């Protein structure tokens, strides 16, 4: 086992017995269970971990958590390549392979760093002022280079082999964050009897307590609390789970990460997105440490103080031998002491003139050198920090201190992200120089550092209180459980915060505010001078806070800088808007299992399996998959449908029409009801008859058409188009429940209850006689548009003699689960007639020959009259849409209305979407109409079409030009009545 130079021999929360192999750019390295990628790299001496976005400056880790702006890696290979992953939150796993980003040719030797010579050019807003070039489209030229330079990691165009899931969970009380405040809150809420879910993004519970030494009272308290919580049966504890967003109605979105490498073949999900509904929510999300702003504050080796402590105590990594800790607050003193105790030579520079007695004692006990009134002005070093310059208010001369680790602590920024997601603005508290939640929605509670309560015991008590109140809000009031939990032994660490001093923009060296997006104090000055002074303008002009870290370490410093220029206090300037997700979340995780074939449910007809087994090809029709054509007829749709058409016109075919919407309309007022919704009359439809009907929207466009049959005085069976079935049903229910509440009608959607099949062709009757011989199929018994319920062997069959194809046809409906048997029965018994199935393509072509409207003719823009159906409208009754149908432009004679078209050019093709012109017209503009549906007509031996044309059939017999400039085609056609086959309908009635 290799010894890393910076790893302590003992201590930390790593398991030295479980080494983990990983690699950086192919170089084999080793860490331990309990390491993050960041801690393992640091232990191996890798301190240069990335290049910055704009200037390609070398960068090291700044933090040890989700706020990390610098240490982003591309993990994995092939389809598992994942760019922009923060090493600080990546738990090390066996075989992990990482690549540093944004350096070319490599992060160690980055030639792009030359861009920093051109730095003046890259000041805030430079894009807007330049690159316009001499020509209108010059930007497109520059953009190529800018795009290549922009972006952080590189993604691959390979499908993701991993699996994700989504879940819906519920809890009485959700506690976000497992620091001392969160642990206490969960404990108290559970004590009161509430079902508690405690979520923590880290792999371990404890939050900031994990950075304490293992022999500390804090750690003992943590351990006791955890075992108390684990003994409570209704506490659900989840680590590696991040609350990513707070939404309306106490909904929290969370993402849970799989530990290590999940195996998709065994169903393991890489990430699970949970939508959680909670009775009450406690936010115990802690606080981020703010960086200090001084020249060169981005040099590798400059780091947040809390991070250095975390690496030391949690991962047993010492990051420097000569350490300077620069701070404005008490918390850093503990870190300084711990670093010193671990063997480093530590100096603390505190900006304040005086500090708490306890801090000084702590420093004294740990042999930390103290310099008060000391503000860092500049870090020295390029690829690693070598010294720090600082100034005091008394002397004008700068002092210098050599160091190999420079820790900074500029105060604390409570994590107010989640509470702000629903629009609550944070409030500024001057006493701690920080933003805290402005208020809480009902049932929301805050506790600990996120509310600005930095003292440990106070945070624990606040957590407890929040836990009890949350439980109470969720309905658990229990007087018996006022017991308090124990507090950690000893006195709390001091936690005062002084004001943060920013380096003036004139100071030497770049002083970074947003490290990832390379926004410096100078950029803020530029934005100020140019008037981009509101925090939102500042953000957008400089891109501040817009990186992968969303400004977790930079927003507050930036606001302070701008507030300073404007002479305003930070309450007035306010913050930018906090938006979900709190930390980036995989798009695959959001999609969960709704991927591939599961993207949207597939609806299948009761005959689907038969089609599959018998060589059908399928086509999407909304959610449905419908049989498009059958292998028996040809290898492609264009070949097959013609043979299928011929079969129907010449003998007999059978077609699955189960997808049609079916609605049972029953009740004493059923007739009146249908009279109101259809343009034509259904009240006078005799029992035993069916009728084609059209219904309109209120605005008089056609909503749907279909056949409705009457089986009893009070019972109708309605069919709708496949596409509009859901819409029609909802509409009918709407009318009955909101407008016509006096009608006694019940509507039942029975689409799924019936299998439907159409037997069509001159031999259709023969086919039925063969297949169902016991019944009278004669024209007398069942004439055209007749309907009847029959019984075959005790099984009810519903027969409608209707035709879409124009041939003699019968629609048969049977209980859905018996559909396949009937279908097979028909095919077998009538086999001698040559009966075969035909698909949607042939069905559509047959109806074009017959001139029936469908598909693109019913496009929500056409009216009854546009479709040539105006005469269907009954004049002696009113129907939905009849009022607005009278609007002048809908009645205008020049409206585009339905025509038939015949191709006049042999070898010419009519195409859907061609634009129609009169022969003398200039072929430009919007034409006089267009082609909606086209088919080759085997009957006529040419292409025929339906279309909409200005004035419609007034122009019957005239020629038109069908322009299809997309293919440079102009084809001549003739306007004809839209009924190409059997215009008088004789074949239907035989």
């Amino acid at each position, binding site marked *: 086992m290799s010894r890393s130079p910076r790893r302590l021999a003992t201590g930390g929360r790593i398991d030295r017995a479980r080494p983990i192999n990983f690699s950086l750019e192919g170089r084999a390295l080793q860490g331990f269970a309990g390491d993050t990628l960041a801690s393992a790299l640091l232990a191996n001496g890798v301190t240069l971990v990335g290049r910055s976005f704009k200037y390609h400056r070398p960068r090291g880790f700044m933090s040890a958590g989700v706020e990390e702006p610098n240490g982003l890696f591309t993990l994995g290979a092939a389809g598992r390549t994942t760019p*922009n992953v923060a090493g600080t939150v990546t738990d090390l796993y066996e075989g992990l392979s990482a690549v540093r980003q944004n350096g070319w040719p490599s992060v160690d030797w980055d030639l792009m760093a030359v861009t920093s010579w051109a730095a*003046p050019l890259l*000041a805030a807003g*430079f*894009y*807007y*002022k*330049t*690159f316009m070039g001499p020509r*209108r*489209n010059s*930007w*497109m030229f520059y*953009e190529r280079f*800018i795009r290549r330079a*922009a*972006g*952080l*990691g590189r993604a691959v165009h*390979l*499908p*993701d082999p*991993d699996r*994700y899931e989504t879940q819906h969970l519920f809890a009485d009380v959700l506690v976000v964050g497992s620091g001392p405040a969160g642990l206490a809150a969960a404990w108290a809420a559970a004590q009161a009897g509430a079902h508690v879910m405690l979520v923590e993004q880290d792999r371990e519970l404890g939050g900031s307590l994990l950075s304490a030494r293992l022999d500390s009272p804090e750690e003992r308290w943590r351990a006791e609390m955890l075992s108390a919580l684990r003994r409570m049966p209704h506490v659900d504890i989840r680590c590696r789970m991040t609350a990513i*967003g707070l*939404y309306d109605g106490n*909904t929290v979105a969370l993402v849970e990460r799989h530990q290590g490498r999940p195996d998709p073949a065994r169903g393991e999900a890489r990430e699970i997105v949970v939508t959680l509904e909670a009775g009450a929510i406690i936010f115990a999300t802690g606080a981020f440490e703010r960086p200090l702003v001084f020249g060169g504050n981005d040099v590798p080796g400059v780091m947040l103080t809390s991070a250095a402590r975390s690496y030391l105590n949690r991962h047993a990594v010492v990051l420097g031998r000569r350490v300077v800790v620069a701070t404005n607050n008490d918390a850093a003193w503990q870190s300084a002491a711990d670093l010193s105790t671990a063997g480093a030579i530590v100096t603390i520079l505190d900006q304040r003139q005086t500090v708490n007695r306890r801090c000084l004692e702590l420093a004294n006990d740990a042999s930390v050198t103290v310099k008060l009134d000391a503000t860092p002005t500049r870090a020295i070093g390029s690829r690693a920090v070598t010294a720090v310059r600082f100034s005091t208010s008394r002397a004008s001369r700068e002092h210098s201190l050599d160091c190999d680790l420079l820790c900074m602590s500029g105060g604390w920024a409570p994590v107010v992200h989640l509470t702000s997601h629903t*629009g609550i603005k944070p409030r500024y508290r001057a006493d701690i120089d920080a933003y805290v939640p402005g208020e809480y929605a009902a049932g929301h509670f805050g506790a600990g550092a996120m509310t600005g309560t930095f003292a440990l015991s106070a945070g624990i008590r606040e957590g407890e209180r929040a836990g009890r109140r949350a439980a109470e809000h969720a309905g658990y009031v229990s007087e018996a459980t006022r017991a308090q939990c124990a507090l950690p032994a000893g006195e709390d660490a001091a936690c005062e915060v002084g004001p943060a001093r920013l380096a003036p923009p004139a100071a030497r060296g770049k002083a970074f505010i947003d490290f990832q997006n390379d926004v410096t104090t100078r950029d803020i000055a*530029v934005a100020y001078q140019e*008037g981009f002074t509101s925090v939102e303008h500042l953000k957008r*002009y400089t891109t501040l806070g817009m990186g992968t870290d969303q400004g977790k370490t930079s927003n507050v410093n930036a606001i302070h800088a701008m507030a300073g220029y404007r002479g305003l206090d930070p309450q007035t300037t306010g913050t930018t808007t906090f938006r*979900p997700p709190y930390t*980036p*979340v*995989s*798009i*695959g995780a*959001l*999609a969960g299992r709704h*991927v*591939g074939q599961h*993207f*949207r449910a597939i609806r299948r007809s009761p005959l689907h399996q038969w089609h599959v087994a018998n060589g059908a090809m399928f086509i*999407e029709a909304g959610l449905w998959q419908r049989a498009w054509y059958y292998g028996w007829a040809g290898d492609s749709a264009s070949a097959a449908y013609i043979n299928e058409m011929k079969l129907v016109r010449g003998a007999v075919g059978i077609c699955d029409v189960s997808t049609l919407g079916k609605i049972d309309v029953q009740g004493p007022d059923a007739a009146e009801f249908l009279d109101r919704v259809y343009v034509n009359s259904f009240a006078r439809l005799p029992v035993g008859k069916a009728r084609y009907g059209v219904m309109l*929207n209120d605005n008089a466009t056609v909503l749907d058409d279909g056949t409705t049959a009457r089986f009893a005085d009070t019972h109708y069976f309605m069919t709708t188009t496949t596409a509009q079935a859901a819409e029609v049903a909802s509409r009918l229910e709407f009318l009955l429940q909101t407008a016509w509440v006096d009608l006694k009608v019940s509507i039942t959607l029975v689409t799924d209850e019936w299998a439907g099949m159409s037997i069509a062709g001159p031999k259709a009757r023969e086919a039925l006689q063969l297949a169902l011989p016991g019944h009278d199929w004669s024209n007398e018994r069942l004439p055209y548009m007749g309907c009847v319920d029959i019984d075959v062997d005790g099984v009810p069959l519903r027969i409608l003699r209707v035709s879409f194809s124009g041939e003699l046809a019968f629609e048969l409906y049977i209980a859905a689960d018996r559909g396949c048997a009937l279908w097979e029965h028909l095919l077998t018994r009538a086999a001698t007639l040559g009966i075969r199935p035909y698909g949607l393509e042939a069905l559509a072509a047959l109806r074009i020959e017959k001139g029936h409207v469908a*598909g*693109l003719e019913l496009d*929500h823009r056409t009216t009854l009259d546009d479709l040539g159906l105006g005469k269907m409208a009954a004049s002696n009754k009113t129907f939905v849409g009849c009022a607005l149908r009278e*609007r002048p*432009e*809908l009645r205008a004679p020049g409206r585009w209305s339905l025509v038939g078209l015949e191709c006049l050019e042999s070898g010419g093709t009519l*195409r*859907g*979407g061609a*634009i129609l012109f009169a022969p003398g017209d200039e072929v430009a503009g*919007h*034409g006089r109409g*267009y082609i*909606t549906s086209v088919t080759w007509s085997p009957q006529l031996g040419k292409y025929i079409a339906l279309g909409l044309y200005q004035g419609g059939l007034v122009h019957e017999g005239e020629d038109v030009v069908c322009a299809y400039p*997309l293919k440079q085609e102009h084809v001549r056609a003739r306007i004809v009545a839209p009924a190409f086959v059997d215009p008088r309908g004789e074949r239907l009635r035989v």
Partner: protein
Amino acid sequence: MRHALSGAAWPRAWRSPQPKSSYDVIIIGGGGHGLATAYYLAANHGVTNVAVIERAYVGSGNVGRNTTLVRSNYLLAGNTQFFEYSLKLWEGLSHELNYNVMLSQRGQVVLAHDPLQLDGLARRGNIMRLNGIDAELLDRGEVMRTLPYLDYSQQARFPILGGLLQRRAGTVRHDAVAWGYARAASGFGVDILENCEVTGFERDGSRVTGVKTSQGSILAGRTAICVAGHSSVLAAMVGLRLPIESHLLQAFVTEPIKPFVNHVISFGAELFYISQSDKGGLVFGGHIDGFNSYTQRGQFPRVQAVAECAVALMPSISRLRLLRHWGGIQDMTPDGSPFICRTPLEGLYFNGGWCYQGFKATPAVGACFAHTIAHEEEHPLVRHFGLERFRQANGHDEYGLGNWTYKQ
């Protein structure tokens, strides 16, 4: 360029004046439309005594939160010319404003997943070509060559059959549009009044004579409403009801990555479109949340539904990570088309109802609305966009939406 090279800051982009007591024209709303209107009033009509009144900061509305797609692939007479005019104005805008708005004509592909959809695209493409607008119809193979990273596998729930490509379509840097127009308008003397909310109107009978604001009353010869999602709120202040419902549309951006998607791609199975910003984030959007709302933040199920579309279209996006999502309030109209017109009240002009499509229209709206205000008569390119159009017929229904504001 000189300022840029020297590294010195430019002067203030736009002045921050005190409101005057009256103006010739007041424009309510400092979004793209309001600012462009002010600019063209000054630049094209010499009307410079103008105030743009913005309740928050310039660009805080939809101009600053949209998915930046510009295109002119329209079908209906009226729309084709209007949106093509707009695209032409985009093509010269950076130079006109001396401000780089970063028009990036990377091309847009609209996909079709069933034959009817493909016919619909063909019709659209044919109309475009017949009006001098570039369009190409791609079959499945051509789509595969152009966009090799979409899902062409057996697993694809809605197979891709083809698409319509407009090469001149693309994206524009949204904030730069607001800032560029604000800067140029301010340069002409237009007052841009930020953090000033209009709370009512000054009236003299049926004539609107100015506005009440959070900073007091300001009078105007003509007053123009340009408030995007809040049109009804403003209209209610003068007792008007509009054919508009306000709906929430969400937008999404991923972490920045190296060039990954070149075109703007629009899925055809559901409303979903994606492009990559110059900064490297994939920017995408979908359907409105589906019920009216002024909350400017979305519902989580829509986030998931949009992510599902993203993966359905482009499986490799699965591992990329969502960085941020936000919402904007947009006016939805029964026919999906906007309004640019006079109103029943004298001195009051209205522009709104832009649904999903107002960003691409920004320059044309500015030019045509400015004309309408200056001439007290609608510009010929916007005559279809009147408030009264539903009294005659069903309006101007580009996508065949029926009459539903919330189903589009």
